[in-house]
């Protein structure tokens, strides 16, 4: 049974696109057939993050308006078996697609894929409504900042209003040392406020910036702690029980040295 998962957050810049790229890639590494669907029409960048920009011929608007078949717009990622991307259009805006068209497209993709992972645009307007129209479940991304948590709360309310009741939370860009100092919201406080299931905690990781700029998802880098966290999320989506990463450790070379010399916390 295939699943349509929308990655959303309300607030911009919290890592929706990065999360979509990484979770999608990780799901394909687990042997699934996955399509990443960029619903951020007019501000597309999932293709850039995936390093597939130069292969785009047709996009989602072409499919919806009948200028090409679904299969023609799908870009196969040669690095990962079973991973495909359907890019957004760059020259149009959110009104180019309607929720009904999105639903229909999701149904068509269901026939060929195990997972359809949708990258939702920021905001609560038309683009958001389109992106969630065909979704079975939502993964809500929040960073441990009040503004991001507030927007996530709003989004959860709106998802409920649109009958997307299967929701899970990913807390992104957590800096454990700041949480300890009391300068960043603790994970428990975020979960406490939003009151939905926690499916992953992703540490702030400089490697994400480098891998993103290279057009390679962090999950392909064995050294990335964030990549590991994304892999675990993918595994939890598959229904496996995976322990949460111990983010206190392995924070970096300096921390390792500190622990070695007994300066641990």
């Amino acid at each position: 049974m295939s699943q349509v998962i929308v990655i959303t957050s309300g607030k911009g810049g919290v890592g929706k696109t990065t999360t979509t790229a990484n979770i999608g890639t990780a799901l394909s590494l687990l042997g699934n057939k996955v399509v990443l669907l960029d619903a951020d029409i007019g501000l597309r960048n999932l293709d850039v993050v995936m390093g597939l920009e130069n292969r785009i011929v047709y996009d989602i608007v072409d499919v919806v308006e009948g200028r090409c078949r679904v299969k023609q717009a799908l870009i196969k990622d040669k690095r990962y078996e079973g991973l495909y991307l359907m890019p957004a259009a760059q020259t149009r805006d959110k009104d180019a697609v309607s929720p009904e068209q999105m639903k229909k497209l999701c149904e068509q993709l269901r026939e060929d894929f195990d997972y359809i992972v949708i990258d939702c645009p920021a905001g609560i307007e038309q683009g958001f409504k389109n992106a969630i129209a065909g979704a079975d479940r939502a993964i809500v991304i929040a960073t441990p900042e009040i503004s991001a948590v507030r927007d996530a709360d709003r989004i959860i309310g709106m998802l409920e209003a649109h009958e997307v009741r299967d929701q899970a939370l990913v807390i992104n860009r957590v800096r454990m040392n700041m949480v300890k100092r009391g300068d960043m919201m603790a994970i428990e406080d975020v979960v406490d406020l939003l009151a939905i299931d926690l499916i992953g905690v992703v540490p702030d990781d400089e490697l994400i910036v480098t891998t993103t700029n290279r057009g390679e998802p962090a999950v392909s880098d064995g050294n990335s702690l964030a990549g590991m966290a994304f892999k675990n999320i993918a595994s939890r989506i598959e229904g496996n029980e995976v322990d949460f990463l111990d983010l206190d450790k392995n924070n970096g070379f300096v921390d390792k040295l500190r622990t070695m010399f007994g300066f641990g916390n």
Partner: protein
Amino acid sequence: MDLENIVIFKGGRDGITVILDEDASFKDIKTIFIQKLQDAKSFFNGAKVNIRFKGKVLTKEQQEELIEILSGQNILNISFIHGFEEDQEEIIESNAEPEQWFSREGSSDASMTKYHIGMLRSGQSIEYKGSVVVLGDVNPGAKISAGGNVLVLGSLKGIVHAGKDPAAHKPYVIAIGMYPAQIGIGNSIARSPDNVYLQKSSEKDEVLIAYLNDSQIYIEPIDQKTIANIMNQ
């Protein structure tokens, strides 16, 4: 298409819903609407009702035309006409009942209560002429406005206003975990102290009551003595 069914009157708990067919023309709707209203004469028999519309989305002028027909007849005794329903309404309940929930004798016993089961999240709001009970948290960015009292069986972090009805007798707000961004009772408004945004969940929540004394809002732990004091002021 059966013209009869393009306008349906449906009775409900809180009045009559008029369902308009999505595909019918406004001209047909208007004709049938007037006809059905006449037919309903014996049924309604001067009853006092609320009316709301559903179904086909009408233009402002068309809405006004129907409302004019409604107000120009003497079959139904309309007590309130709800606005035309929007696509996705986020206000969970905005109940503009025309009656006075609070008797002018000054007893709060007569108040009606709205129960909301579940959390109230950012951007959601409850507006009610009577009292409001929420079984869940009221998150930052959510809003409750009540004519009477407000009880939150959860953590109150949003904006709350109780006792909006001047006839409400000694209105109060009770919450398990009282951290409202803003709290209003009657004509008084208070706001939370600054810089407490990194609230620790480990702090043990206490059941507190907020009440009005001499236009000042006081917040105290709830116990028999406090309640007695408030009510006997």
